[in-house]
């Protein structure tokens, strides 16, 4: 597999961060799509999958921060937990892609995505509880409610993100994995 240069990985990360700001704006005018597909998650997950854990982590931290600075979304109240959640997504996705090599790109992507989303959501749920409602019972409530309400978005992401990765490979914008 051909490796991308440090410069290229850096610029892809920059573009992913910019998309964290732009995508929610694009979906803002489409009623309800924003809450369903969680537009800020997509560039961060992609960045982690394609560029690795360091860049994924950076995208996860900088994306929501810049989005808040430029568009006010997410509101500052939700910013810390979003940053934590997306940082975990980017980091774990990147780590998983480094560690898993099943020789099938599809499988690699799915495993990485599912693991990072589960871990990310749990960590975010805990963070949310710690910030807003510390207490053993509330933590369980927050985490479960976060999971249950988020699942349509998760399913769409699981279909959409591999589709984007394959499109990028076909267009030769990122190297083939195997």
């Amino acid at each position: 597999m051909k490796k991308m240069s440090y410069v290229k990985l850096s610029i892809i990360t920059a573009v992913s961060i910019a998309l964290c700001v732009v995508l929610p704006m694009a979906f803002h005018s489409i009623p309800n799509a924003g809450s369903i597909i969680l537009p800020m998650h997509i560039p961060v997950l992609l960045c982690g999958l394609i560029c690795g854990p360091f860049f994924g982590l950076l995208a996860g931290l900088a994306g929501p921060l810049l989005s808040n600075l430029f568009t006010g979304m997410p509101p500052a109240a939700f910013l810390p937990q979003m940053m934590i959640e997306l940082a975990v997504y980017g980091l774990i996705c990147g780590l998983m892609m480094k560690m898993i090599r099943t020789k099938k790109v599809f499988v690699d992507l799915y495993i990485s995505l599912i693991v990072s989303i589960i871990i990310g959501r749990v960590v975010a749920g805990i963070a949310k509880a710690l910030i807003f409602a510390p207490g053993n019972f509330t933590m369980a409530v927050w985490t479960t409610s976060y999971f249950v309400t988020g699942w349509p978005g998760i399913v769409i992401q699981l279909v959409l993100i591999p589709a984007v990765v394959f499109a990028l490979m076909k267009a030769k914008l990122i190297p083939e994995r195997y």
Partner: protein
Amino acid sequence: MQITIDNLSYTYTDPSGQTVHALQSVSCSIDPGDFTGIIGRTGCGKTTLILLIAGLLTPTKGHIFLDGRDINDKSYDRNLLRQSIGVVFQYPEVQLFETTVEKDVAFGLTYSRLGSKEKEDRIEWALETMGFDFEKIRKQSPLALSGGEKRRVAIAGVLAVKPKILIFDEPIAGLDPYGRQNFMELVSRLNDDGTTIIMISHNMDALAEYTKRLIVLDEGKVIQSGKTRDIFLGWGRDTRGTEPQQIASLISKGKNTLLDDVVTYDDLIFALKKQLLGVEQHE
């Protein structure tokens, strides 16, 4: 389909807070089967005009009538609008996203009420019209094609809908001379078959040779509209004319006999033959 534009205005606020009057009281009409070019300087409102005609923007004031019906009226069927008007934007290859060429071209037919056999026939026709071998190209990934092929697939995607009106925004920008010629001939053939063509272009020669009418915009207003030849001849000695006109003008310096009636390269060749060889008939 008859397009009538009545007192159309479009105003918006740009990111720095300024009010922009993109179009001001524009009125014109485009007859069925017309081949109309839209020209003007960058920022004069050409793209805004076609976006309004295609129903992608809502006018601030004024109306657009398609066969007598206001397209912005609540009762107007939007699906019908999409099937009747096809738009090819600049660098249309950007819109490709499907896994196979066949699927991407089929995208525009998603909401048409055609059966699957009819859809396949349309897709085949559209791709063959754009110069592809249907069986070879259909299962390929559109994203792995060359730049030129991508553009042709994107245009096929719009053609497949068989719209009665086709709008092009600077379609030959970035094409080599062969590409330009092939494209303009294709569009001309579509026009001969009855499709109304509206084309924004900066290429005066292409417009001079193929279009029947021109609409000239400046700062959001229509400053001229009419037959192509009349408009170019009116500019004859101006730098806004076509290249053959400018060449004829240079050759004419000193003697005024060459420039009359020269708009296209064919005209120029005939004028030279007339001048130098005494040929009388224009083929």
